[in-house]
């Protein structure tokens, strides 16, 4: 394209290029520049490896925290008894009435499951477990009421929802008293929320620092190629043409940094998992950490590439334009 000389049959136009070919060539040039900037990284591996490692390791911490949060969520969901509501029924109900009530409750959408512990079974359990066997024998009648253990449906297990369910159950005619250990549940939820918020804040901070680090590395790359950029500007290169290889460098940083983040996260989770297994064995449960799924790994990778690109974009936008031929 010639700006000053309309009639000048010049440049790419002279080599008759169709729109389609031009489109293809644009991508071919991009691919060439991408490979060229990869070659540049391979030629100076040490400096670029440092930046890639920083990028990867910075993402490892939020990724690991994310895995921890995710697993805490599963643990929370596993502890159904935490939001189990205990209903103490009135003592004057007949067994028939209790059975009907149990049936009615179990049909409610808010309730997943109802277990009926009748008063005699309850007494027998209490006698076995408490050690008050002889004292209980001396009682003339069973002091315990019938008890229903109500497990709320999955969407009713949050502290607020289960509290609401508790209130409505309390209104039932058959119920003497209803109990729910909400306080404990709320503390647990608050703790999870704290970890989640901490994870988000940390992730955000580390992402910002990744952008700054990549930006700074690209800035150094740009200033080390100052002369070359000047010559390119003198022979008519546009800013975007000069910027492209640096942006690809940022993308490569992201690609390799993402791989490093995968690896480091996997190692860290493997390391934590042995400790978690130890704890869960002490609690006699079969729990082990769930690592990143394939989708989550892809998100992590894209995030790394995006951050690399953003960092390099910020650097080139400012510094390539600032270099003027002397």
């Amino acid at each position, binding site marked *: 394209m010639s700006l000053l000389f309309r009639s000048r049959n010049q440049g*790419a136009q002279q080599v008759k290029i169709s729109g389609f070919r031009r489109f293809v060539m644009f991508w071919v040039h991009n691919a060439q520049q991408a490979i060229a900037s990869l070659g540049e990284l391979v030629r100076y591996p040490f400096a670029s490896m440092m930046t890639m490692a920083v990028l990867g390791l910075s993402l490892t911490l939020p990724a690991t925290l994310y895995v921890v949060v995710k697993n805490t969520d599963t643990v929370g969901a596993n502890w159904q008894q935490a939001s189990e509501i205990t209903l103490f029924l009135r003592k004057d109900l007949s067994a028939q009435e209790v059975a009907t009530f149990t049936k009615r409750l179990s049909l409610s959408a808010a309730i997943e499951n109802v277990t009926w512990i009748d008063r005699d079974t309850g007494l027998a359990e209490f006698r076995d477990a408490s050690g008050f066997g002889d004292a209980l024998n001396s009682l003339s009648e069973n002091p315990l009421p019938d008890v229903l253990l109500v497990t709320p449906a999955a969407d009713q297990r949050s502290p607020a929802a289960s509290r609401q369910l508790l209130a409505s159950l309390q209104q039932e005619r058959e119920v003497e008293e209803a109990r729910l250990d909400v306080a404990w549940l709320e503390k647990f939820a608050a703790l999870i929320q704290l970890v989640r918020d901490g994870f988000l804040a940390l992730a955000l901070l580390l992402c910002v620092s990744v952008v700054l680090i990549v930006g700074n590395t690209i800035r150094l790359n740009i200033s080390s190629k100052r002369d070359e950029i000047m010559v390119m500007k003198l022979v008519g290169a546009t800013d975007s043409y000069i910027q492209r290889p640096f942006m690809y460098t940022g993308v490569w940083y992201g690609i390799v940094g993402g791989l490093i983040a995968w690896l480091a996260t996997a190692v860290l989770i493997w390391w934590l998992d042995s400790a978690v297994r130890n704890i869960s064995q002490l609690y006699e449960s079969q729990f082990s950490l769930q690592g990143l799924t394939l989708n989550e790994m892809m998100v992590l990778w894209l995030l790394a590439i995006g951050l690399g690109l953003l960092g390099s974009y910020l650097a080139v936008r400012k510094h390539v334009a600032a270099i003027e*031929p002397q």
Partner: protein
Amino acid sequence: MIKFEQVSKTYPGGFQALNQVSFHVEPGEMVFLTGHSGAGKSTLLRLISMMERPTAGRVMINGHDLRKIGRREIPYVRRDIGMIFQDHRLLMDKTILDNVALPLLIEGYSMQEARKRVSAALEKVGLGDKLRHYPMMLSGGEQQRVGIARAIVNKPPLLLADEPTGNLDPKLSLEIIRLFEDFNRLGTSVLIATHDLGLISRLRYRTLSLKDGRMINDGLAEN
């Protein structure tokens, strides 16, 4: 081709490099620009290649007012101007082929398409066999000729040369000037800045003389 109308350039700090300079270089003309160092030769060339903007006055190329060219359009202006420098500004870590192909690649040629034109340009400056060499492997005169090949490889209608013979002995200098004459014969307008008065006087071309930023002579050089 190049028209200056009352052009002045004052640098920040108050140094006035050009003072109301006017001249007109016709299409296809070959003109020398001379004056002692600091007279404003480089500034004048920098105004044409848009490395600087004038403080006052108007610079026209082919009837286009450069004041109307935005920052983002400057690269396209430079593609129409072949520039040659005293220090030739070659990329030392690239081969001669890559150096000369640079303007073509920037315009969107593929390397295969560029290679033919690069060979032709290098052939013209007599370095057809040095495609794979690096600039460090060439002599000063050869490096300068590589710089010229890079300037003419996309056949610009206008050539600017800033002290192209500055580091060369008289014989090599004359060879370089003969090259410019060849391009000029093919219709390219050529503007050469030099303080080598001996060279100019032998050639009898139109010569613009600057002194302290003013145009003191426009015509044949006086001895």
